[in-house]
């Protein structure tokens, strides 16, 4: 069963036609990795699902059409978003970032789970989010998305720009989260993708060119051909 179905999605930004009829399914309760070279439209796809870019075609969340719906209603419908550049509120404290994101007043359990996942956020609750390291900011961004009950989690390059130790920490957190939710993950780190993805979508030049299982990620020739990188043995 699909949690999210994207059909024939076209998106233009200004004069540029970025997505050319993107079509894919995200199976419920599984992690789907959205892969491809830089600039093929992966982040645009996530932003379009979130309603941050307008397009034509169809995006269904559990059978409900969400294309053209305001972003805040898409989020309320259960789409959580961890953006590529974290986009935490740097002038707010960690606690304020989390309070803002929480739509349910009685979600003590959600806070407990988050602080188990990222204990540092509990100890740094009063600290301004802008003064955190890149890895800690990524934890805030992920924690913010996990505070509410969601249908799907859209995660855009969560390990981008992080030091190797932090990549492991964020990856471990995503592995734990992956057991509990449907996730559409854009990620360049193939080792992480192979660890958690159960389904793979590959995009090229604004189109989906492959959707299937993750087995091919172990084939260096396939990885090189599809993604333009070596990494099949990672």
């Amino acid at each position, binding site marked *: 069963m699909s949690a999210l179905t994207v059909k024939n999605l076209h998106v233009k930004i200004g004069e540029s036609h970025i997505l050319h009829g993107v079509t894919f399914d995200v199976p419920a309760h599984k992690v789907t990795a959205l892969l491809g070279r830089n600039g093929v439209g992966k982040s645009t796809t996530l932003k379009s699902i979130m309603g*941050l870019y307008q397009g034509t075609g169809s995006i269904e969340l559990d059978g409900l059409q969400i294309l053209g719906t305001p972003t*805040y209603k898409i*989020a309320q419908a259960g789409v959580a978003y961890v953006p590529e550049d974290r986009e935490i509120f740097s*002038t707010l404290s960690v606690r*304020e970032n989390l309070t*803002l*994101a929480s*739509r349910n007043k009685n979600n003590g359990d959600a806070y407990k789970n988050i602080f188990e996942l990222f204990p540092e956020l509990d100890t740094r609750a009063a600290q301004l989010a802008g003064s955190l390291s890149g890895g800690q900011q990524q934890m805030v961004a992920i924690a913010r998305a996990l505070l509410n009950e969601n249908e799907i989690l859209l995660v855009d390059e969560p390990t981008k720009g992080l030091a190797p130790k932090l990549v492991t920490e964020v990856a471990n957190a995503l592995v734990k989260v992956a057991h509990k939710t449907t996730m559409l993950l854009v990620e360049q780190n193939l080792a992480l993708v192979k660890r958690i993805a159960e389904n793979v979508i590959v995009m090229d030049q604004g189109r989906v060119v492959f959707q299937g299982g993750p087995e091919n990620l172990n084939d260096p020739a396939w990885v090189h051909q599809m993604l333009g990188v070596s990494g099949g043995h990672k």
Partner: protein
Amino acid sequence: METFILIGITGIGLGALYFLVASGLSLIYGLMGVLNFAHGSFLTVGAFVGFWVASKMGFETTIPEFLLAMIIGGLAAGLFALLIEQLLITRLYERHIDQALVTVGVSLVVGAVLGGWFGNDLRMFPTPMWFLTAIDIGGAQIPADRVIYISTAILLLIGNWALLKFTRIGLIIRAGVENRHMVDALGINVRKAFSTVFFLGGFAAGVGGVLVSVYSNGVSPLIAGSYLIYGFIVVVIGGMGSVPGSFLAAMLIGIIKQFANYYATGLGDFVVVILLAVVLLIRPQGLLGKVRA
């Protein structure tokens, strides 16, 4: 020394009036990116409604009556601002040129309607007799009305700070100033916060309108003119979206202008423009503004 104190405190009083105009402008631009040239009309509407309420109480008002007229003037301006936001601005988000044209149009219409109705002559604002007295501070005789300007500005600053710091709507506004699309992506309708900010900005401008009328010895449809220009200067120097920045800049400008006018006769406006240029060159984001990504 007395002269120094007198000029300093009257400068702070003038700065307080600039702050009342600028605080709403700063929040409205900081949160919504709306360059609101209709802000002067909020000030004028507040001044006229306050004048109407005060006039009902006679030629002279008591301090509580004056404060009531000021608050009603502020509320009327806040509601007028909300009306303008709902009817016009909501259709023009992200369309900056259209916003400028429409808000300039609103200010022209309000000025013309009030001018046609009441005429453009100054009408004496009914004030308490206490306003005409002087308070001795360090030997300087300070006009008593300055106390009202300064305390109102400080109360508004504290109220603004408390709202922004301790309420959920304040949290949404602060986050929205930084990144309104991400606030939306968290499932929050940031446009509701926009309406609150428009109301608060209108309220502050309306209260400012009543006090400007007292300072200018009367109410008139033309009263907002130079105050709106100074409001924009304060916002730029203080930093877009920063209310404390606006307060700091307004006080700085009020004091510098008064001293310049006294020691270099009539050069107050010129010195403020030089200050604006210096800030733009050295710190384009303003004194307490944040650099936008």
